[in-house]
């Protein structure tokens, strides 16, 4: 086995950032058009909240931090993606060499966490020489991600074959990222691995977790430009999938791979029928507003309030989701949808005007909108994104509160959606805990500002929503319908006195 050039054993650091244009160019050149990377509306409905940089693009950026004479010797790559890097988010790359491992490592950190680890080795990777049968099928590359049905589970032994070839611009991206000295077959394999996870297996709901890529051989004749892939392990608990793969590049090289990924479960739609009576109740003569009303707990609360006969204004940022006419049926005339960014005072003006114009007293405000909390560590550097998260979260509560509190009737309620994380803080969520703490103190302030109002803080348990739809978080998550139904029934039954009430998760 060759040795990699040593250079300086001392580590070096570099700053990296990836723009929307970078992600679009990568998608076009690699063929990985998964919307998680390029469609902000789609990304908003995932636990990431914003577009995520392709793992293979991060890898090219990381490798570009290594010297060219190291890159030319690399024959094996190990990639690990522990946390998402968001579009525009700064990351720091740190390189180091291990004599014992005879390998270079690049670690990408951001938000106070290690997010990506790339190991470059001079030889074939042990255990990554398996050869699923030679690719026979030349099924053309997909232009839309494979989107299996909910019940369509991958099975061990499943095999996928097809054509693969990146565009010439892909090599240019590698050069632009200073990784042009890497063997072209490994560059191609990075594009292929991204394409596989984002477009083929699992496809639309795939999350790239890790890969090992090993350059096996090079044949001077023209290659096929195709691949085969066979599922080795699948675990339905977390939807983790491990597959062995083999890529024959058009330049005649063969790369063996082990690709590890997760599939985000498609969440079942909220059970509208459980919250809405078949025949609408008589009108209550009151209105209510739900901020963040189209998804998760907010959508369930919207349906429960609608079922109670209230004229219900639901504010959403991206899509009306479950609140479409097909689900709401005969209740539709009492549901008023407002697409608005609740952080923007100007965008809430039409909502306020609509409530005043329709003339019904405002009975309640539900503050259910929240920002997805990506894992974060607290360091001096990550304090800035932490404070930005907290500030944006406070705006999501304070802007609607400021706009709507003057309209609230004397016995009205404000439901502040907090979290059980406040009493049992998860280690990786300092920003989320700080934001929910601020929300709870605004609830306390609301009582001082409007003494007759019922200010209710609900510390919700982990709910099965888009925000928790990740491999580990969704385990043990509770469906939001039952909790929303019970909570709204208690609010309707005047179960809570005026002043501040804090409800713990176990009281729901």
């Amino acid at each position, binding site marked *: 086995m060759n040795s990699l050039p040593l250079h300086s054993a001392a580590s070096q650091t570099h700053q990296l950032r990836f723009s929307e244009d970078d992600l679009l160019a990568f998608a076009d050149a690699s063929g990985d058009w998964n919307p998680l990377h390029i469609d902000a509306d789609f990304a908003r409905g995932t636990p990431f909240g914003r577009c995520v940089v392709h793992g293979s693009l991060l890898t090219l950026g990381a490798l570009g931090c290594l010297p060219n004479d190291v890159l030319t010797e690399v024959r094996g790559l190990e990639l690990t993606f522990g946390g998402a890097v968001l579009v525009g988010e700064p990351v720091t790359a740190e390189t180091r060499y291990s004599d014992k*491992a005879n390998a270079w490592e690049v670690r990408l950190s951001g938000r106070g966490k290690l997010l990506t680890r790339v190991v470059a080795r001079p030889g074939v990777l042990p255990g990554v020489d398996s050869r699923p049968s030679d690719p026979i099928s030349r099924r053309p590359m997909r232009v839309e991600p494979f989107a299996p049905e909910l019940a369509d589970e991958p099975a061990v032994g499943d095999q996928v074959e097809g054509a693969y070839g990146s565009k010439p611009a892909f090599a240019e991206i590698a050069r632009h990222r200073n990784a042009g000295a890497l063997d072209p077959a490994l560059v191609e394999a990075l594009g292929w691995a991204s394409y596989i996870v984002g477009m083929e297996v699992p496809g639309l709901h795939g999350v790239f977790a890790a890969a090992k890529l090993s350059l096996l051989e090079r044949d001077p004749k023209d290659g096929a430009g195709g691949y085969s892939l066979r599922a080795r392990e699948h675990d339905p608990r977390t939807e983790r999938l491990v597959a062995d793969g083999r890529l024959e590049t058009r330049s005649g090289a063969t790369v063996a791979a082990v690709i590890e990924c997760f599939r985000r479960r498609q969440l079942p739609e909220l059970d509208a029928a459980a919250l809405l009576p078949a025949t609408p109740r008589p009108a209550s003569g009151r209105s209510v507003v739900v901020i963040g009303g189209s998804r998760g707990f907010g959508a369930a609360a919207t349906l429960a309030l609608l079922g109670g006969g209230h004229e219900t204004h639901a504010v959403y940022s991206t899509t009306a989701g479950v609140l479409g006419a097909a689900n709401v049926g005969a209740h539709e005339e009492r549901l008023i949808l407002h697409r608005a960014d609740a952080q923007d005072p100007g965008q809430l003006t039409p909502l306020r005007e609509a409530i005043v114009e329709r003339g019904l007293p405002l009975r309640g405000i539900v503050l259910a909108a929240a920002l997805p909390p990506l894992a974060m560590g607290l360091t001096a550097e990550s304090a800035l994104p932490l404070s930005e998260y907290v500030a944006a979260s406070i705006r999501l509560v304070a802007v609607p509160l400021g706009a709507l509190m003057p309209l609230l009737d004397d016995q009205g309620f404000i439901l502040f959606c907090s979290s059980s994380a406040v009493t049992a803080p998860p280690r990786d969520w300092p920003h989320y805990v700080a934001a929910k703490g601020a929300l709870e103190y605004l609830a306390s302030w609301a009582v001082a500002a409007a003494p007759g109002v019922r200010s209710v803080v609900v510390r919700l348990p982990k709910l099965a929503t888009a925000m928790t739809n990740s491999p580990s978080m969704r385990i043990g998550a509770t469906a939001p319908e039952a909790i929303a139904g019970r909570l709204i029934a208690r609010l309707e039954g005047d179960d809570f006195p005026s002043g501040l009430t804090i409800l713990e998760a176990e009281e729901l």
Partner: protein
Amino acid sequence: MSVAQDFDRIFDEVLEDILGWDLAIGDDDGSGTVEGWDSLSHVRLIHALETRFAIRLPDAALLDEPTAGSLKRLVREQLAAS
């Protein structure tokens, strides 16, 4: 090599494969002390241990924040029970 040494070697190999080399992870180390031992790599670690030792760990192990030592004990218990 004894069975116990063999167990430790395989356990350390899995840890190294998932979390990285040169980390010198002790029994008291865990997600709070090892950089990169985050929730996703923890899930990968549990699955990798299950595959390597041909066992099934309780679902709770996917959620816990254990130390390397407590994880080692859990794997040993499952091996003994299987």
